[in-house]
């Protein structure tokens, strides 16, 4: 997947207890797939940048709690996509209480 020359970027700290675990990864990739934009995710600015619509790849990052998640997207709805993904992480994937 190639990203156009002026991608939209954003970042958020992952507070979820178990890191980017099965359920959070599924929620994140499902949300990413609702956008037409190509979206990539990384844990360091040097990459590797991986497809935020692939749950297998997102899980394989094994991002632990307190990692900074970096997003970049390109396409018509790129800005909305980044905002929605950051909001999902900030809402702790809607599973705040006693849930690991």
């Amino acid at each position: 997947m190639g990203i156009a020359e002026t991608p939209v970027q954003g970042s958020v700290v992952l507070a979820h207890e178990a890191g980017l675990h099965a359920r959070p990864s599924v929620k994140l990739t499902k949300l990413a797939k609702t956008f037409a934009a190509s979206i990539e995710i990384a844990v360091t600015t040097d990459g590797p940048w991986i497809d935020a619509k692939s749950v297998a790849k997102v899980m394989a990052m094994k991002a632990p709690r307190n990692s900074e998640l970096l997003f970049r997207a390109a396409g018509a709805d790129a800005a909305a996509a980044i905002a929605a993904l950051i909001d999902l992480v900030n809402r702790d994937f809607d599973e705040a209480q006693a849930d690991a």
Partner: protein
Amino acid sequence: MPEIWHAGRVASGGIAIGTAFLLPGAPAEQTVSARKTDNPAAEAAALRSALAAAIDDIGALISATAGEAADVLEFQVAMLEDDSLGEPAFAAIADGAAADLAWTAALDAQIADYSASDDDYFKARTADLADMRDRVLRHLRGEAVVSVPAGAILLGDDLTPSLFLSQDWSQGGGIALSKGSASSHVAMLARMRRVPMVVGLSMDISSVATGTPIIVDAEVGRIAISPDAVTRKDSETRRAQVEAELIQAEAFRLKPGRTADGSDIRVLINIAGLADLEQLDPAICDGIGLVRTEFLFPQNGHLPDEEEQFGIYRRMVQWAQGRPVTIRTLDAGGDKPIAGLTIAESNPFLGLRGLRLSLARPDVFKIQLRALCRAAVHGNLKIMLPMVSVPRELEASRQLLEEAISELHLAGIPHARPLLGIMVEVPSTALMPERFAAAFYSIGSNDLTQYTLAAARDLDSVAGLGDASDPAVLKLIANTAAYGWQAGLEVSLCGDAAAETRLVPLLLQAGLRVLSVAPAAVGRVKAAVASIRLA
């Protein structure tokens, strides 16, 4: 056929009475495919249709489940629907590989990647990936999907999450496994669904025929094959009793531990790893009374490094939200060998085990102490030493702890000095607790019982002697509790005896006010406490 009992470990409590259903093993490993591989396009199509069929299977399961269980399945669907999961397999097929071998290799690579993770959560995903691998493989090979009759007792080496979830447990039933683990995904699901489950049965499962009557006694951790009429009747009575207790316990789980005449009893939990804390509300307990760190040390000779241990201990104290967390240092040896660490002995229970082993291996011990001091910054962490026999062992450990602290100090690494306490499981400590300069005492009733009565825990032939309610054992417990009371030091009990409701009154009468039990037993113990009058 005469009645036969086999002992194992409880993974999920309760009693199940039913007939055996023998689980098939994982699909046989093949290095040569039976498939014709001369047509890559046909192989790719076969894999695609096997993936689609697997997704359909799981979709049907999801419609019949809810909550956490459905989440586990939805994760599998999302993974199977993801093209990148099968990408390496399709690439191998294009190069002439057979679909089944290509798929197995692709998933095995992923499984190896996750099992190498330092993080328990990610490590636990290997079971899900193996489940997906086998499901797709069965479709590729045209093997029948297993269909288990409702209410059956599932008997096998191990059980996959998807088979557990495909089963209708509303009709009863249970699980008995020769391998398996109490911290597996399936064990967690079984505890949530209250399916009685016993693991680690040392028996040849394949010798039991499907249809054989079986009782799974997951209160004690054993199964009966071909039970006679008396055992059956007895088990039915106990099952009804357990169910009544369960309903009562549910009501007590979140209440504080208090006797009928108003004495506060603190109830803490025993855990073996982070997996035990998953889905657990810290409000049910007064803290963690025992972390069995030997289960963090895998059997393959690789010992977890300082960072890995620090991460795990820190997450435990964070979970506890300020409640005390008592972490026991490595208690290997005896019935818990660790390859590359413990040595073979003719009488391991009287050998180099527990703290004796840690003091013999200060290199390994120091790493654990450093990790514990670092995690202590993040909450209320206490260190507990297992199998202490004489005071100089405690003092030698204190010396190592001080060394660890000054090393961390010099390196500028944040740390704190945890309280240092001892387990009371050797009669010498229970007889004269005042000899030890410990900050707290915790009675390990299993070992204290076996050493007091000289009846090995792992020998069925003397199991009748090893009774924690023996007056001699209770006298040692009372002696320790009395010293703690007099010296103003905490004395708790973290052995199996604390979770046995018939023993709880005896333990409180012996002077104990702090009990630590398996998370599943918290409600039951608080309910038992509430019915006791101490005055």
